[in-house]
Every structure is written in C-alpha cells, then in structure tokens.
C-alpha cells in the first residue's frame, strides 16, 4: 500500500501545551492552575482531565473576550488573579498562556511583575508564569516548560549541600507517583518529587467540597531543590534546553541523571542502580524480590508471548520504555507511534539496534495514520491510551490500556507502570490477553492452561 501523507491531522495523538502546564500546577501543594486566554481552553482541559482522573479539576481562566483581545489582557489577568485569591486562597498560582494570549503578544512575565509590585497584599503569593502556546509542541512541551518555570521561579537559594534527591518524573500516573515515593522512602532518601499530583488527582472521599485538594509537592521543598545532591529526571525525549533537571544541574552544579521511564527489567535496573549510586548502598531486599518474581514470571509466560506483534502509541517516553519492555519478553513492537516528533531519537537511546530494525517508527503521527499502518502490519495487540479503542474495535484486536488518557474505564489514574512492580502488572495483563484470545478461540474451551 502506498503511504499517503496528510497535511491535516486526523484524530490527534497529542494534546496542546496548556494541558501539560496545568497538570504540573495541579501537582504543587496549594496551587491553582490558571490559563491566560479564552474561557473554553480551561473548560475543555478540565473535562479531559476529569474524564480520566475522576476528580474535581478547578482551572481558572482570565476569560479573554473580544475587547480584551483587542486592547490587551492585562486587566483581565489581574482581575482574574485577584478573584482566584479571594475565592481559593491558594499558596501559589500557576499561569499558563495559550495560543490566543501568545498570538496577541501578551507578556506574562511582565504582567506578573507589575501585578506583584502594584499591590503588596498580593506579592506574597508566588506566581509562576509559563509560556504555553498551543501551536508549539504538544502537551508534553507544556508539561516540561511548566516544571522548568516552577523550578526557575521558586528555586533561589544556593545553600549547604543536603542529602536531598530531586526527582522529576515527567507525566506518569498517580499510582506511578505513589510507587516512586514508596521506593524513595524505602531507600531512606530525602527527596522532592516534582510534580506530585498523586493525591490531588486521585484523592480520598471528602464529604465537603474542598477549594484546593490536599497533597502536591510542598513549595518549601521546591525552594530547596538547588541544594540537592543529585537530580534524576525521567524521559529521554527531553531536550537539554527544555529540561528543568539540566537547568538545576547547571545552575547549582548538581549531578544530573536523565533516565528513561523505568518500565521493563533493563530500565528498572538502570533506575534502581542510579538510586543505589545516589544513596550509596544496595537496593532493599523487597525490590530484589520484586525483580526476582518478575524474572520468574517472564519465564512462566514466555511461550505465550514469543513472536507476538504489538502496536504501541502515545507519548514518546511512554512508547520508548514500553517498547523496550515488550522486546524483553519476545513481543515485537512492530509499530511505535507518537504525536510528538522525536520518537526515533528517543527510541534509539534505549532500544537495541537489532530490535530497532524490526520497528516501524511513526513520529508526528495521528490516530488515522496509526490505524492505516496497523491494518497493514496486523498486530496481535494494541498498547496505549483508550483513544486507540476505535481501531482496536474495528480490527478486532485486543487493546491493553496503559498511559494517558483512559477515558473508557475506571482506574486509569491507579494504573501502575513503573519499576519491577509496575512491569509485573503490565506483564500479567499482557500475557493474559494472549492466553484469553487462545482460550476464547479454542473449540474446546478448556479451563486450565
């Protein structure tokens, strides 16, 4: 089949920058996300997040209308910030621009300075601005830009070197964040995890509506990140110029480890070895056992997996680590696709060249292109977000939901992907998909394997 290339995007495999930025702000203690632009963006982003996390997501907007667009949004921004302070009493406001405010040339940094100097009463609440034009990059760009802005705005002091480990996990699930914290605590590490929306976007039952959910990275801890003895940043797709970790490392002379998401044995090993190095002693027994059990499971299940073909799609770092994991167990990631544009480079940082040869890589792609390619490659499984459901359904191929978003099932926020434990869960789900297909298509319908 001859490949048609389209100028247009048909069912995007990406979101826009303000999405990622507001998500980061949701992960800071007491912070309220704010979009400087038209009203709709805040609402659309809220409902997209709510449908995955199933939690309240309050995002304010400066609600720029026609006159503010012509005469400038300064007044709306300042009125909006004051209203948010009155209503929510936040400890911080994270302000992302969007395509509208960027196109009309709003200078967010300057507006923030003016706002804070005009009225002393408002100068105590930290305001973090991030430029997040929707026409530049994807939600991942907005995410990393926001982490970088938070760090650059809040980390000031350079003090005595502490035992602190700064960890920048990237866009992972709430359960992943909780697991990372568990690991760091078990290692006895003093850490700052930024952002941390594990509680704010997967919280407990409340009884009474809360203005800002409990949880998130404490601002005090962010301020101390300049004193870290090491910084670990997950995600190989990051460019140095975009990365908060490399900024911290450069600015405060801190050792910097940029690692892929720890999915699979190889990448989990790399992650745990880095922690061992930072801490200075071997990983706790608990994780040795988790690793051992995972290896044991790999062996138990390998016959059901060998030679199976997977199509993996989503964010570059997720796709790369997932591809690395499935190649460890004999599944061929025949197609790796993302709406982002550096997928090939990202994959190459962790995938064996021999395996790379078997992968078709579709960077800057969309779901229709992925579906058309999948029709040719005839995979045995799709791995990725719920947005791939339509092609899986059409092709009658199972979909293993993972990553973001999971809009058609409960519990996407509680799905674990990282570490030996996360890999174990993914492994069990994946192998069972093939076992089930075999069982379902068997004329006998046996009840043991």
């Amino acid at each position, binding site marked *: 089949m001859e490949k048609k290339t389209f100028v247009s995007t*048909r069912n995007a495999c*990406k979101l826009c920058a303000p999405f990622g930025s507001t998500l980061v702000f949701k992960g800071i203690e007491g912070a309220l996300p704010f979009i400087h632009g038209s009203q709709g963006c805040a609402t659309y982003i*809220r409902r997209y997040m709510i449908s995955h996390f*199933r939690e309240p*997501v309050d995002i*304010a907007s400066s609600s720029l209308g026609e006159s503010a667009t012509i005469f400038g949004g300064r007044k709306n921004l300042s009125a909006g910030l004051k209203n948010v302070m009155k*209503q929510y009493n936040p400890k911080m406001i994270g302000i992302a621009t969007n395509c509208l405010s960027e196109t009309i040339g709003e200078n967010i940094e300057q507006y923030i300075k003016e706002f804070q100097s005009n009225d002393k009463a408002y100068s105590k609440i930290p305001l973090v601005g991030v430029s997040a034009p929707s*026409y530049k990059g994807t939600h991942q760009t907005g995410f990393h830009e926001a982490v970088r802005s938070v760090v650059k705005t809040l980390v000031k002091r350079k003090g005595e070197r502490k035992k602190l480990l700064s960890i920048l996990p990237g866009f992972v699930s709430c359960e992943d964040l909780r697991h990372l914290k568990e690991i760091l605590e078990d290692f006895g590490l003093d850490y700052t995890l930024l952002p941390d929306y594990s509680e704010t976007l997967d919280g407990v039952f409340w009884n009474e509506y809360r203005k800002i959910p409990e949880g998130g990275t404490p601002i005090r801890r962010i301020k101390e990140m300049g004193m870290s003895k090491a910084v670990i940043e997950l995600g190989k797709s990051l460019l140095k110029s975009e990365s908060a970790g490399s900024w911290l490392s450069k600015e405060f002379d801190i050792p910097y480890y940029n690692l892929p998401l720890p999915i699979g044995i190889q990448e989990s090993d790399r992650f745990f070895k880095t922690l061992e190095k930072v801490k200075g002693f071997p990983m706790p027994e608990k994780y040795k056992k988790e690793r051992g059990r995972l290896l044991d499971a790999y062996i138990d299940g390998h016959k059901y997996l060998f030679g199976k073909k997977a199509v993996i799609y989503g964010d570059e770092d997720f796709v790369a680590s997932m591809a690395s994991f499935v190649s460890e167990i004999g599944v061929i990631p025949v197609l790796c696709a993302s709406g982002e544009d550096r997928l090939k480079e990202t994959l190459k940082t962790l995938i064996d060249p021999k395996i790379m040869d078997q992968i078709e890589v579709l960077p800057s792609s969309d779901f229709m292109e992925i579906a058309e390619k999948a029709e040719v490659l005839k995979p045995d499984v799709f791995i990725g977000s719920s947005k791939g459901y339509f092609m899986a359904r059409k092709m009658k191929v199972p979909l293993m939901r993972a990553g973001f978003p999971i809009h058609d099932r409960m519990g996407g926020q509680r799905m674990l992907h990282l570490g030996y434990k996360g890999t174990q869960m993914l492994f069990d789900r994946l192998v069972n998909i093939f076992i089930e297909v075999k069982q379902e298509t068997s004329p006998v319908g046996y009840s043991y394997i």
Partner: protein
Amino acid sequence: MAVVLEERKDQVLRLENGAKDIVCEKESLAGSVSQRACVFCGSRVVLYPIADALHLIHGPIGCAAYTWDIRGALSSGPELHRISFSTDLTETDVIYGGEKKLYQALSELIDEYKPKAAFVYSTCIIGIIGDDVQSVCKKAAKEKNIPVLPVHSEGFKGIKKDGYKAACDALYRLMDENKDEEYLEDNPFTINIMGDFNLAGETWMIKEYYQKMGIKVITALTGDSRVDEIKKCRHAKLNIVQCSGSMMSLAKKMKEVYGIPYIKVSYFGIEDVSDALYQVALFFNDKTVLEKTQELVRSEIERIYPKILEYRKALEGKKAAVYVGGAFKAFSLIKALKTIGMKTEIVGSQTGNQEDYKLLREVSGEGTIIVDDTNPLELSGFIREKKVQILIGGVKERPIAYKMGIGFCDHNHERKTALAGFQGMLNFAYEVYSTVESPVWKWTQPDYL
C-alpha cells in the same frame, strides 16, 4: 454558605419576596472558574451530528483534540463526523498565515473522504493572524463542487451561544443553496425537528413518534442528519424547536425567509413531551393525526407511568440541584423531577437569557436559588446550604457531587442513556433512582444528610 464574588452577585437569584431580575448573558468573570466553554464549543456541538459532512477545525491542535468523539450523537449511516480533523497549526503557520495549509487540508480531505459538504471552524487565533477563511472555502467549494462553509467560531468572540448562532448561520447558508430544486412529497404534514442531536438515539425515538402520528420529518437539525436532507428542509410546513438556545436564531430566520412557522417544545418529561406532540398535531389540525397522537400518548403513558410511580415511592420528598447548559432544559428537568416527587432547590444554566430565567422563576418554588454561569465553589456551597441529595449536570459537575457524597445524573451531551421522550423519562427516573438508592452512600453521606 457559598461565597459569591461581588461582581457575580447579580447572577445569583434567591426566590424570596421582592427578588430582582437575574443578570445573565454576560462574559464570564475572569478567575471565577466558570463551567462554560466557548464560542467554538457552541458551533461544534450543533453541527457535529451531521454525519456525512467533513468537520475541519482550523487552528492549533487543542480544539480538535478535546472535542474528538465527545458527543454521543449517533448516526444510522456514515460516521465521518466522528473523525476530528484539524489543520494543526504550528508556529510557522501562525507567523506566515494558515491559508495555504487550510486549502491543502480541505483538498486532500475532500478527495479522500468525499463528504457531501465541509464545515471549517475558525478557532481563536484565526481572526488574529488574518486568514481569509471565506476565500479559501469558496475556492475549495468551486474546485470540489460541494458546499464548503466557514463557521465563524473564534472562541473569544462571545459565549457559547454566539457559537450556536455561527452554526445556525452555516446551516442556513447550506439550506439556502440550490433554492430552485423541486421537492416532491405526498404527505402534507411535514416538519423539521430542530435542536435534537440524537444523543443515545433520542432523535430516532422522537422521529418514531412523529411517524406514528402520520407526520413526515424532513430532517432533524442536526441529530443523525445528512447534508442532502438539510438542503431540503426549507420545504417543511412547521419547525419544532427543542433546545431553543441553540436553534432559535435559525428558526426565526427560516420563518422570515421561507415563511415556516415554529413552535418551541421540549421532549424531556411526560408533560413536556406529550405537550410537544399535541402542539404539532393541533397545528396540522387533522382528525386522523390528532387521534393517532392521542393513542400514542395514552399508550406510552400507560406503559411507563406505573413504573415511574414505583421509583417515585423511593424518591418522594428528596431534593435536587440542576445545573445544565441551556435554561430551557432546566425548565423541563424541574417538571420531570416533580413527576418523580422531587423538589429542585437549586437551578441554573450556562447560557440562559432573561426570558428563560423568567420561566424558570415561574416553575420554581419559594426559596429556590437560581444561578447563571456558576462555578464549583458556589455550586457546592449552595448544595450544602440546601441539603441537596442529587445533582443533575454534566461531566464537570459530576466530581462536585461525588466528592460531597451525593448522587449524580448526567444530562449532558456525552450521555449514553436516552433521556428524551416517554422511554427517556422512564430512563431518567431510573437514573435518579439508581444513584439515590445506591448502597455506596452508607459510608459516604455528607454530614448534612
């Protein structure tokens, strides 16, 4: 008690002696965390169900990504509307203009998908970067020989309602093409259903009622509609307008230009749906039609009413809050809730006008709180104050109810359960019953209950 920002106080009305008129149809207040979307959203939801048209969103990716397949508008045939096409503008396009890309996108997509018409939605930045969308559409229409209609839906240029108007303008231009075409129809009783979007198959149910009454539906605007039907709809004898907020401007225009009278109806609730069908029958004033209508209404009520009474037993005296997009729907919901024995304590809408709110006042009891363009903090405060047991709203309202520990019924455009018509009333009663009577509240009741 809920804290209401000073500037919003006139948009909250407590029904007491001497209460003033509510203030509405305002731009959302910056920083208030409005539940509203934007102009684009208004256009997108109205035109979306036209299943054999190409819907191309001109702008950066966000607007297309967030609205991909979110509306549960079913089609009995083609499903082109479910693909979210975008010109996906990037930084270079913003600098040099997006016209060329728009033209290319239109050409390739019309060639590939052969739609009967194309709608091009302008998003926020299109007007600002100065793209001449009209000319591009004209050129494409001429070359491809299908109607290519620009929809002026820049997000910041007003509120959702202005988007409805932009969509209606596009629909009018579509039906006004080929004016001289002949229309042959034996049935003298022809109507258009306006403002029903076939969510969960609701248009199909309503069409079936009219069919049983001996009335021919030319098209539904826009549930399960086709371009060719819409082109013919100016031949109808009567327009039946539901969701008047979205379709009123088109109904008025069709009256003015084609002399088609219209009536305003609602298909939600036994009273309103019966009234709607009788009004149509009385308009045609035909004995057979009237008899058939009576028979239909009688048999449907006989079928559903005993079951509704069962639910009513459990629900009698319970308190509800309603917050929806259009005020006319809120009006019907108050009556439908009354049918199952419930009192509406709080009612509000995103886009109601003065006339709508006057009607709401008439059906609301003393002490009811009426809100325009409310937000999570106000809404949760009022719910607490009024000791409400169930909230009826959309996706963004759901977590407010759930976090507070009260029931919720989705009455928004994503719903998968039909709530219109007689069967819809039964479904609605069951929806309310199943959430209020669920055992899960045993451990999670709000402290006011």
